[in-house]
């Protein structure tokens, strides 16, 4: 919404208030002013001139030598190149010293040997947007088509001195979508008088009823419809003042018949429509829902296919307008129009919104109907238009408007006590202060003691409940004046849940290991949604997908964070960042059975690392990341949170290296995986060796025991023993450890692999693996023979189970 300050001044006295200050006051009280435009030009050296004589320049074919009366003693000679300049015109003359928009400074000059004292201007040269310049003046100077005073400043005449506020209106303040509403608002802010139009017309004896009848088929979609016949009209250009008003609001003037409806729309917020009566084709207006699949051609020349949820204005047979949105071509006002059918109606906001959004036809009219126009102002707006048709187009108004339906509205009453307002704002407004605010807002009210009853007028349809009144008092009192307090109720301890606390600890741990937290999109491609899904997630179902994705890039909800993390690695590598370690902690979205059932959101953490991990540049050390780097990070995480052991079980998963992948198993349950990307996948992403894990944090958190059993530190010494076995290369360390652990009870405490060897001096297909074992008894010192016995038991069992040889 654009609000012209010059126009606003017609209704409310804001003379002397700087526009910036006004804008801030409006912003702080109710409606955000997004910008202030203009003034375009306000220069007293730009005046009205009268072309006394115009002849061709002696030395130039395309130039004219004009003698211009600029209200001074002598005529000014001005050289003008415009093709349309002629003797007898009132024009805009920029005198020497004037400065035009764009910085051009007017000086006395000689053009092809002839003196020129200024410039006769086109509208574009005066800074008027080309789209507002009438076609016939686009290539030439501007010529006044009405009487003006020679020598008077021209900028105000063309409204170039105006400033315009650009409002960012919230949906509740539809009352400010028109100049009258803005006048109410500004008058309330500054406690000023209001001068509003009170239109009157001379009604001819002839009755509109003789020309037209109105029938409404659906009162819900169209509660009220008024039709007025205006005859004897002459189509011409609107007067300058009206054109100025439309231009200030961003609307292009067309002709007087069309401009008047637009003017009233801006002034009252009531969209009107003028049909050419002679082209309407019947003596009856029938408003009705469209038939399924019915078509009509709107003013813009497009054929629209309609549904029963759309409302049509018809002549009983064929549609002439899509109600509240756009008229039809057949009954459009044209240059030869002499009689119009003026429509003043109330259309249901939702009906209009459906039509405008489905047909992508947002207009000044639909924008207002959608938000709900003021029912009680429909007739007054029609009267205002009629007044202007009479005054500016020579129209004859035929009797009373033909009406159908009702503009009555369910009255709203809001009753409250003074303390209810103060308790919600946190103020101590007195009765006087509250009465003053209600009066400034011009809201009818009754006050008896502490008790108030406000009856909001229909222009303030947004006021319905107590809280709406709280807002009116708060904003008019001024948010700046409300004190700063903090709630004084009972105190809460606040804080984090176990899950939130553990989540924070996971973040802290992973960051300490050197990983950077990444954030990727939850919505991914269909293809990516299928990859790297941890095996414990049921993958026979398709990932959750959007009904109407905007792009295939974000159509499905992720089942793993890994695919998008890999894209992040690739993004960095493409920018010459090669050594990368990322993790992301967030939800994946598991589809649930059944329609309209929420997916299960599972908290997971995933990581991806690539490039050099150990690096000592000038000492020549450069070790790329490997499986055990990432495994070490995971083991650290598990040791930190869990008592139970997480087992890494060799596995083969899609997208991962078949020899370097493991499932993570906690108490026999799969909780994720770790592995190297398959070389093909690495190649697809332009990555060197890259390792990833994807872990179900919820399952891990379920096993975290936050009150561990304390065990006193024993004073009895531990005994350490080393054992090395030669076994078949495919036997895993874990398999041997399991036997050692079982046989080593009750005194074996820890097992640690300290050497693995395969290669030279070792039989083909064999490897040596060495363990360090510690034995301890918490109650007493262990005897050597007790340990020797356990050691022997371990050796025998490992030998028997895996055909192992004890080494050295």
């Amino acid at each position: 919404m654009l609000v012209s300050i010059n126009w606003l001044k017609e209704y409310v006295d804001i003379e002397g208030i700087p526009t910036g200050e006004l804008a801030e006051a409006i912003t702080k009280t109710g409606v955000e002013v997004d910008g202030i435009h203009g003034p375009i030009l306000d220069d007293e050296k730009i005046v009205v001139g009268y072309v006394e004589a115009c002849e061709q320049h002696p030395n130039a074919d395309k130039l004219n030598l004009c003698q211009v009366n600029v209200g001074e003693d002598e005529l000014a000679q001005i050289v003008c190149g415009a093709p349309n300049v002629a003797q007898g015109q009132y024009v805009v003359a920029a005198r020497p010293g004037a400065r035009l928009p764009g910085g051009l400074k007017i000086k006395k000059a000689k053009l092809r040997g002839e003196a020129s004292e200024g410039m006769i201007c086109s509208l574009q040269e005066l800074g008027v947007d080309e789209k507002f310049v009438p076609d016939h003046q686009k290539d030439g100077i501007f010529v006044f088509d009405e009487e003006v005073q020679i020598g008077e400043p021209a900028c105000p005449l063309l409204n170039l001195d105006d400033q315009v506020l650009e409002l960012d209106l919230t949906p509740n303040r539809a009352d400010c979508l028109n100049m009258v509403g803005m006048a109410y608002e500004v008058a309330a802010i500054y406690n000023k008088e209001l001068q509003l139009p009170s239109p009157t017309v001379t009604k001819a004896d002839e009755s509109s009823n003789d020309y037209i009848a109105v029938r409404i088929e659906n009162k819900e979609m169209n509660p009220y419809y008024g039709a007025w016949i205006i005859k004897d009209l002459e189509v011409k250009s609107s007067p300058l003042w009206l054109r100025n008003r439309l231009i200030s609001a961003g609307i292009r003037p067309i002709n007087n018949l069309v401009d008047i409806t637009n003017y009233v729309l801006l002034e009252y917020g009531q969209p009107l429509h003028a049909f050419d009566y002679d082209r309407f084709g019947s003596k009856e207006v029938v408003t009705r829902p469209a038939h399924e699949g019915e078509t009509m051609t709107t003013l813009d020349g497009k054929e629209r296919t309609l549904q029963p949820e759309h409302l049509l204005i018809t002549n009983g047979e064929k549609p002439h307008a899509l109600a509240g949105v756009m008229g039809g071509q057949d009954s459009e006002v044209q240059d030869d129009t002499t009689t119009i059918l003026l429509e003043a109606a109330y259309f249901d906001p939702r009906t209009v919104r459906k039509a405008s959004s489905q047909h992508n036809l947002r207009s000044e009219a639909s924008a207002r109907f959608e938000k709900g126009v003021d029912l009680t102002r429909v007739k007054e707006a029609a009267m205002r238009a009629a007044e202007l048709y009479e005054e500016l187009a020579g129209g004859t108004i035929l009797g009373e408007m033909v009406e159908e339906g009702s503009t009555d509205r369910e009255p709203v009453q809001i009753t409250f006590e003074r303390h209810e307002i103060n308790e919600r704002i946190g103020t101590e407004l007195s009765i006087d202060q509250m009465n003053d605010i209600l009066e400034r807002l011009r809201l009818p009210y009754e006050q008896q003691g502490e008790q108030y009853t406000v009856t909001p007028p229909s222009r303030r349809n947004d006021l319905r409940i107590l809280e709406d009144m709280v807002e009116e008092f708060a904003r008019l009192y001024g948010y700046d004046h409300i004190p700063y307090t903090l709630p004084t109720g009972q105190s809460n301890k606040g804080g984090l849940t176990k899950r939130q606390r553990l989540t924070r600890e996971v973040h802290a741990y992973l960051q300490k290991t050197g990983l950077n937290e990444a954030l990727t999109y939850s919505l991914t491609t269909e293809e990516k949604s299928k990859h790297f899904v941890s095996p414990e997630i049921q993958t026979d179902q398709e990932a959750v997908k959007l009904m109407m994705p905007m792009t295939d890039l974000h159509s499905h909800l992720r089942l793993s964070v890994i695919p998008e993390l890999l894209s992040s690695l690739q993004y960095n590598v493409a920018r010459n960042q090669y050594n990368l370690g990322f993790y992301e902690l967030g939800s994946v979205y598991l589809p649930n059975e059944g329609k309209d059932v929420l997916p299960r959101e599972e908290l997971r953490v995933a990581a991806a690392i690539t490039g050099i991990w150990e690096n000592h540049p000038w000492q020549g050390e450069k070790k790329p990341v490997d499986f055990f780097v990432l495994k070490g990070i995971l083991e650290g995480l598990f040791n930190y949170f869990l008592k139970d052991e997480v087992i890494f079980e060799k596995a083969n998963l899609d997208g991962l290296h078949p020899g370097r992948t493991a499932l993570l198993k906690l108490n026999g349950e799969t909780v994720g995986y770790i592995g190297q990307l398959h070389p093909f996948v690495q190649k697809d992403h332009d990555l060197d060796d890259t390792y990833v894990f994807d872990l179900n944090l919820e399952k891990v958190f379920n096993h975290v025991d936050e009150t561990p059993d304390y065990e006193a530190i024993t004073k009895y010494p531990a005994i350490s023993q080393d054992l090395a076995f030669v076994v078949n290369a495919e036997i895993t360390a874990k398999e041997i450890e399991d036997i050692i652990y079982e046989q080593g009870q009750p005194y074996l405490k820890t097992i640690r692999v300290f050497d693995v060897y395969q290669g030279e001096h070792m039989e083909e297909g064999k490897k040596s693996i060495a363990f360090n074992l510690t034995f301890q008894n918490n109650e007493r010192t262990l005897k050597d023979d007790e340990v020797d016995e356990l050691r022997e038991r371990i050796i025998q069992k490992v030998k028997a189970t895996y055909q192992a040889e004890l080494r050295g």
Partner: protein
Amino acid sequence: MKERLQSIKQEAITEIEAADTQKSLQDVRVQFLGKKGKITEVLKGMGKLSKEERPVIGQLANEVRDEITASIEEKADLLEKQAIEEQLKAETIDVTLPGRPTHTGGPHILMKTIRDIEDLFIGMGYEVAEGPEVETDYYNFEALNLPKGHPARDMQDSFYITEELLMRTHTSPVQARTLNAHEGRGPVKIICPGKVYRRDTDDATHSHQFTQIEGLYVDEHITMSDLKGTLNVLAKHLFGEDREIRLRPSFFPFTEPSVEMDISCKVCNGDGCSVCKHTGWIEILGAGLVHPNVLEMAGFDSKKYTGFAFGMGPERIAMLKYGIEDIRHFYTNDVRFLKQFHQV
């Protein structure tokens, strides 16, 4: 024999002085003090001496041995010191060479911003509440006073999954869920961070996924001034003690009255510049008193209970605070971007 001992002593001292390594000093020790050394040799000849001479020569021999021992030890200390000095010299490194790089990971700036706000409110007795990112139409809209057909819930603005399910468009459904769970009893003091989704084409200022953090306080006697005081604490915490705040009317379906909070522009200090669009103020968040319909739908008596709610975008806060120019940086994970915020 006296002379012999004296000359041994002289000889020893000369050789000790000449010894320049631990090894040669050790040789001197063996040569003079060893089992077959020169002193022992002299002492072996003691048998030939008279009874009177024996103690005298014996004592002298002891004195000579002690002196030689002392000299050797003194020299040994000297040699050790020299050896260490040489070793230290040999071990000298260029301390200006770079050290071994360590792994320095860190948090994402958005998560850090969210945690910072969480912690501020935890300190004021709030709990952190979370909810699903895929929501029902009821919690995302209806429970927040956005009935079906309301203009603000256009299908065009949301990612629907079915007619009834959608990617939540704000974190406000967490408020509705938490209120419901309280079964009409206050106080409710929560701060709700999370990811939200809108039908926007990604560009420098729009992202189809972004984060929000909201606060809700419902109790008896909660006022607009309490909201103002709370937001003032928040604004100063985030942007500095010298920032001013202002509230101005706005509209959200789930609050009434609704306000937006601006802070005074840090760049121009309120004089007006391009950052604040020449208004001197920068919009930070939306807030208001919880709409009675929202309270009633969640089972709260809106005559007895009032509450305030506020919500903001961590992206916007980080962008303002650090001058980040493109919202897409938050989601592309360029390490050169991420690492800049580890220390903040």
